[in-house]
């Protein structure tokens, strides 16, 4: 039975697509057949972060409307085996994602894949509701910042009332908190909410902390999910997230500031 995982947040720009790309790639690297779907109709970007933007021929909406077969729209990842991408339409509006259409595509994907990652658009409009409706699990991507935390709480409320599992009175959607763009230096200075604060307010289990990192922008520049950069802190953090998602018990990292040398402390530095 395939697991459907939505990556959501409410607020935009917190790292949903970066997270979707890295978690999907990470699961595939561990040998799991995985597909990642872009639900952001009209503003697709997952293809760019996955580096397959020039290979998009058909999209999610074409499949829903019967203008293309699912296998024609799915893009096999060139770097990673077991991984496919279903891009969003760039030209239609969000209403093109019908309930029945999305369900049909998900059921078809469930035959071939173990994990279906749904990259939600920002907001709480139709596209976001469609992305979370069929989810078995949710990764709530949150920045340690007031508006992001508040919007995450709002999305949690929607998951608990408007998802299929809520509507049909099934076991609730399994929620995971992922804190991204965490800056331990600023936390130490009292300028940023710390992990305990965010956990306490949202009251859901923490699956990982991704530090604010220059490697994230580099990865998106290159169209290679940051999880592939195993030398970078963010890449390692996403690898940990994937391992935890698969049930491994790994302590959280990147929570403390990197200790600087004497000269760096005296003169500031590039560190």
């Amino acid at each position, binding site marked *: 039975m395939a697991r459907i995982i939505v990556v959501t947040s409410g607020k935009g720009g917190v790292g949903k697509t970066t997270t979707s790309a890295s978690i999907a790639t990470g699961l595939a690297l561990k040998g799991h057949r995985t597909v990642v779907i872009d639900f952001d109709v009209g503003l697709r970007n997952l293809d760019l972060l996955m580096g397959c933007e020039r290979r998009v021929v058909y999209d999610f909406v074409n499949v829903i409307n019967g203008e293309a077969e699912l296998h024609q729209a799915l893009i096999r990842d060139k770097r990673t085996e077991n991984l496919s991408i279903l891009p969003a339409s760039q030209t239609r509006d969000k209403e093109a994602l019908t309930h029945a259409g999305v369900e049909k595509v998900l059921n078809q994907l469930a035959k071939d894949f173990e994990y279906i990652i749904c990259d939600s658009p920002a907001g709480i409009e139709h596209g976001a509701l469609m992305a979370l409706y069929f989810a078995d699990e949710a990764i709530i991507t949150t920045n340690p910042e*007031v508006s992001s935390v508040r919007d995450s709480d709002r999305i949690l409320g929607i998951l608990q009332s408007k998802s299929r599992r809520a509507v049909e009175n099934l076991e609730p959607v399994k929620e995971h908190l992922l804190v991204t763009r965490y800056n331990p230096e600023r*936390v130490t200075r*009292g*300028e940023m*909410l*710390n992990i305990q604060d965010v956990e306490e*307010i949202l009251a859901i289990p923490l699956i990982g902390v991704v530090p604010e990192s220059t490697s994230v922008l580099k990865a998106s520049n290159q169209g290679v999910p940051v999880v592939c950069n195993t030398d970078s802190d963010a890449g390692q953090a996403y690898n940990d997230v994937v391992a935890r998602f698969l049930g491994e018990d790994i302590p959280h990292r990147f929570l403390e500031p990197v200790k600087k040398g004497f000269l760096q402390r005296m003169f*500031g530095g590039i560190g």
Partner: protein
Amino acid sequence: MSLMQLFRSRKEDNSAAIAKERLQIIVAHERSSRSGRDFLPAMERDILEVIQKYIEVQQECIDIKLDSQDGCSILEVNVQLPN
């Protein structure tokens, strides 16, 4: 922390603590309003009517809040009486 920063006051305002406090309040408020407690505005009108039967007060002189603390809900009614 560079040389210049060393001379600056180490005691900065802890804005993260303010963020946490504000978030706790707004999130609790929004959770209570989505957990089916949308009767508050109607109840506020009723309470105001009862009070107005005896004392002349304006709508803005009454403030009703429903808070939760340690698993206990508190209904707070503040009425500012005219002089």
